């Protein structure tokens, strides 16, 4: 049993093994230092196949698929801008003025995959290899490629992420709601989900 390669090693191996694949390391600052790999959509399936079939890695077991909801955020930064401004003597001169600029950063939905290897006996308590796929935004462009064709165990968990977060997995063989009923419109695990008003306060009718 050998230790799993670090995220940097994996990135180098993937980029050497899958031409054109864009892999970004998402660092994790917590003590577990569970860095993860962010994949691009076009090569996600190829990278997954590479990780599964590579003789040194053999990550043949996807133990967990989950979703993460990242809300739209507003970035506030102070920028120094050169501007024409009237000085105290009434003459317009170029001055450096500090301005607060607000930029909207669109949120996104994220699908997270935890990989272990049965063949190499990589499992808990050692850390998994973590893959991430991000959607472009939270509303209309919420598609990521499905990895069910690579790891069969993803099927129900991707359906769960679809059900509760609204991530659409392209190429999933049977993408339906799994926990909530057909016809339910919300995605209850999203951070901006508002439950129906059936429980706020109860009062006797006059």
């Amino acid at each position, binding site marked *: 049993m050998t230790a799993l390669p670090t995220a940097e090693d994996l990135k180098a191996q993937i980029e050497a093994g899958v031409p054109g694949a864009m892999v970004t390391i998402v660092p994790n600052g917590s003590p577990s230092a569970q860095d993860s790999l962010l994949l691009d959509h076009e090569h996600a399936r190829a990278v997954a196949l590479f990780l599964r079939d590579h003789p040194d890695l053999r990550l043949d077991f996807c133990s967990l698929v989950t979703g993460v909801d990242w809300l739209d955020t507003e970035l506030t930064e102070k920028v120094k801008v050169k501007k024409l401004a009237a000085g105290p003597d009434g003459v317009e001169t170029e001055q450096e003025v500090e301005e607060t600029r607000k930029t909207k950063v669109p949120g996104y939905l994220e699908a997270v995959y935890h990989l272990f290897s049965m063949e190499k006996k990589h499992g808990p308590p050692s850390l998994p290899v973590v893959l991430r796929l991000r959607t472009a935004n939270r509303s209309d462009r919420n598609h990521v490629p499905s990895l069910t064709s690579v790891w069969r165990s993803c099927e129900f968990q991707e359906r769960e992420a679809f059900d509760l977060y609204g991530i659409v997995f392209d190429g999933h063989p049977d993408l339906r709601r799994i*926990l*909530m*009923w*057909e*016809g*339910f*419109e*919300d995605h*209850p695990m999203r951070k901006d*989900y508002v*439950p*129906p*008003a*059936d*429980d*706020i*306060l*109860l*009062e*006797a*009718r006059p």
Partner: protein
Amino acid sequence: MADDLKDLKLELSKNGIFTTTLEELYNWGRRNSVWPLTFGLACCAIEMIATTMARYDLARFGAEVFRPSPRQADLIIVSGTVTKKMAPQVVRLYNQMPEPKYVIAMGACAISGGPFRDGYNVLKGIDRYIPVDVHIPGCPPRPEALIHAFMTLQKKIEEQALRGESRPRHLNADLPSEFPVPEFGAHGLEPAQNDEVFLNETGNPLRIIQ
């Protein structure tokens, strides 16, 4: 009149003569053969099963026969979390029971949603859809609590007059035997409660205010 009768009965029993009324006899028979439905929803069901076993022995109260079909059951013990997906099935099972039928809501989840009350998937109390006779708090309630609830139900059955407005449902043609089954809506169950059933302590419908 009733007090006179009671005094007379007492006096007779002191002289070794046992008397009873048809009502007492009828209710005595009913309360000692309440057959629950074999129906468990979550961890409370484990306590319910323990209650029926030798240590707590619900058979002492005439309720050892858990019927696997609602057609033969008198009592449904809603034991555990009622999810919104399960609620229509619970109501339908209750509807399929013949009258007289009674409901015990067992545990925090069944009476109010319990620790999952703020969840998106849990019904906030089965008393929104069917008339509950006895509520048991607890998470889960101990078997003694279920036995206490059962004795409370027996007392309720015993005190039901066979005539008049408060007569049991099965003797009253006007009271419905079925209750509307909630449907799966776009955001939750529809309707959110049954106004005929979801009443406060004065008998008025409870209303949701936002």
